[in-house]
């Protein structure tokens, strides 16, 4: 055995032309030398599927040279539940409970996405109050989903405290969801043509209070992270994907916008009247983890703005219907079904036969916290869809992980994977 001298390139972060810190990988001297026992051969490292930093049952097989990733092979499917297959055996309203369980970090937004798709298929115009309630549901979901992302990514990179702050705030939204729907996670808040329930008493005041105090927590997170040397060092210039490549990889949501593409479904294909709300869409510049963080942080401020505006609209719509008036689509109230013959017949037919959709097909995309959630429904005139396809945003975002990880350090893989914001329920479906 020869004597070996290790020379570590202990770098002081130098700045590049854009003023961003450049990183020098800590390497082992003499890499590539065939006589070198360190790092000359590629090494195989397995991460997951049972690993907290993979954010679910994701398994990554990494080929390493020293600490540098040569290749990353993701394996998915551990949580495959066959939702799309199940949907072909269910009425449209019976599918809604399945949508909770896809992206379980933002269940309400999934409910809204499916209901909008089914309504587009059936040609149903929802009521004004229903649209406002759905905007509230979507933006609450965006906030809790981004809060989970922020907290867990912070933990992945060694910051524990912001996790406690974000989960405290998330808990407040969960309480609101529970008050509204009776469930914290399996909300199933929408119905085709309306909502499961109107807002409970006191909900508006609680949400208004949240909107008032929540930005203060965000400010604190901003203070802790945005100019933090460790955070910047771990995230700036890591996992970069450029504008054209981000489009070519079909990325969506904050991943796409962090790469400088000005595309948000709420602005470009407005649904639920999003074009009547005032909000800004944050756009990144460098396409790295840091910009994804900045985009998601700003989106939470913007969601609070939208929630405030939606709450302002509610008093004028007090008592307005939340469901369309078509008795063939919306179940009558239980008391009417038990006392009125006609209502009972409608109730029976809807429960036993479901609501048929005319033959045709519809694609409806909405801006979910993780990207564009598409609902593609094909109907043949019966009450069950021929095909229910979810366009899963984090599945498509995750597909570019091998590209993002190429040439990164092993420790950066954790940060890059976290920055994609995946949720395995949706990826594996």
């Amino acid at each position, binding site marked *: 055995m020869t004597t070996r001298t290790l020379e570590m390139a202990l770098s002081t972060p130098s700045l590049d032309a854009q003023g961003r810190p450049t990183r020098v990988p800590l390497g082992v001297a003499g890499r590539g030398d065939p006589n070198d026992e360190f790092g000359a051969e590629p090494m195989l490292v397995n991460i997951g599927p049972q690993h907290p930093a993979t954010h679910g049952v994701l398994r990554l097989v990494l080929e390493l040279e020293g600490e540098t990733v040569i290749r990353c092979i993701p394996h998915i499917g551990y949580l495959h539940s066959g939702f799309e297959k199940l949907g072909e055996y269910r009425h449209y309203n019976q599918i809604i409970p399945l949508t909770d369980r896809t992206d379980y970090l933002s269940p309400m937004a999934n409910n809204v996405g499916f209901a909008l798709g089914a309504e587009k298929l059936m040609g149903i115009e929802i009521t004004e109050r229903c649209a406002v309630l759905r905007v509230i549901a979507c933006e609450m979901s965006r906030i809790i989903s981004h809060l989970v992302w922020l907290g867990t990514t912070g933990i992945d990179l060694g910051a524990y405290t912001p996790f406690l702050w974000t989960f405290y705030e998330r808990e407040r939204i969960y309480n609101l969801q529970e008050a509204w729907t009776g469930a914290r996670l399996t909300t199933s808040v929408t119905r085709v043509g309306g909502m499961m329930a109107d807002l409970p008493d006191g909900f508006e005041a609680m949400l208004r209070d949240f909107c008032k105090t929540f930005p203060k927590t965000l400010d604190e997170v901003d203070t802790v992270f945005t100019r933090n040397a460790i955070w910047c060092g771990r995230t700036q210039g890591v996992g970069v994907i450029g504008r054209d490549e981000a489009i070519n990889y079909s*990325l969506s949501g904050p991943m796409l916008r962090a790469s400088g593409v000005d595309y948000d479904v709420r602005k470009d294909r407005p649904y639920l009247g999003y074009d009547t709300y005032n909000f800004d869409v944050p756009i990144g510049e460098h396409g790295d983890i840091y910009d994804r963080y900045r985009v998601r942080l700003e989106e939470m401020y913007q969601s609070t703005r939208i929630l405030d505006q939606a709450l302002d609209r509610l008093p004028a719509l007090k008592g307005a219907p939340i469901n369309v008036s078509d008795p063939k689509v919306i179940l009558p109230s239980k008391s009417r079904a038990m006392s009125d013959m006609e209502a009972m017949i409608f109730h029976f037919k809807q429960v036993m036969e479901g609501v048929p959709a005319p033959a045709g097909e*519809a694609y409806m995309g909405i801006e979910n916290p993780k990207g564009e959630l598409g609902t593609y429904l094909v109907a*043949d005139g019966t009450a069950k869809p021929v095909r229910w396809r979810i366009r899963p945003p984090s599945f498509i975002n995750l597909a570019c992980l091998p590209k993002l990880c190429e040439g990164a350090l092993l420790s950066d893989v954790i940060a890059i994977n976290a920055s994609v914001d995946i949720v395995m329920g949706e990826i594996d479906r």
Partner: protein
Amino acid sequence: MTDGRTDGQTVGRTETAPQSESVSALRDRFGPVVLRTAVSCGDSIVWVDRARAHEVLAWLRDTPGQAFDYLTDVTAVEYRDPERDLEVSYQLRSLARRADLRIKIPLSKSGPLEVDSVVDLWKGADWLEREVFDMFGVTFKGHPDLRRILMWDTYAEGHPLRKDFPLRGHFTRAEQTRQALAANPEAHYSMEELSIAEAYDELPEEMRHRLSHGERGHVL
């Protein structure tokens, strides 16, 4: 707003939404390659012939007036009517023009379920095409790495989203349980992955034998 060749199965209602301008441009450029067109729920749909579908998609992406630079989704549809063709569906979008278009390729079930891969046009199609292959058994010619993605590599029950696939699978519950118990976690590395680390040579003889004879293959 549908043309005379709509079969009435897909569009069973009066559509008032206008057809996308790209549809007539496609007809002018490709003529008979465009099999038929329709508008459903406001979405324009174009059925194109399998043989030149890749050319059509490349043209839609690269022609300045079309500029469908974003591949929203790739999926497939199989209808309940067993006579109807299976369709591979591409949902395209032009980010700059804010336009959408759905291209569908009908595949006769009596022939090979095979289309050209579009991974060379959109890298985002990689996993989407793998999923269609996994769930429907459609082969994408020219795909760099076409293998199952949601189900495991040696899954032998078929393609789950096909209509002839029962909801509970082809095998009995007992057989499925038996296979799950017989699965060997050590064999969960592919041969390719093991060859990266050259770990294969260092495995015990007995395990090497099992792996090279397809440990999970033999229970099928």
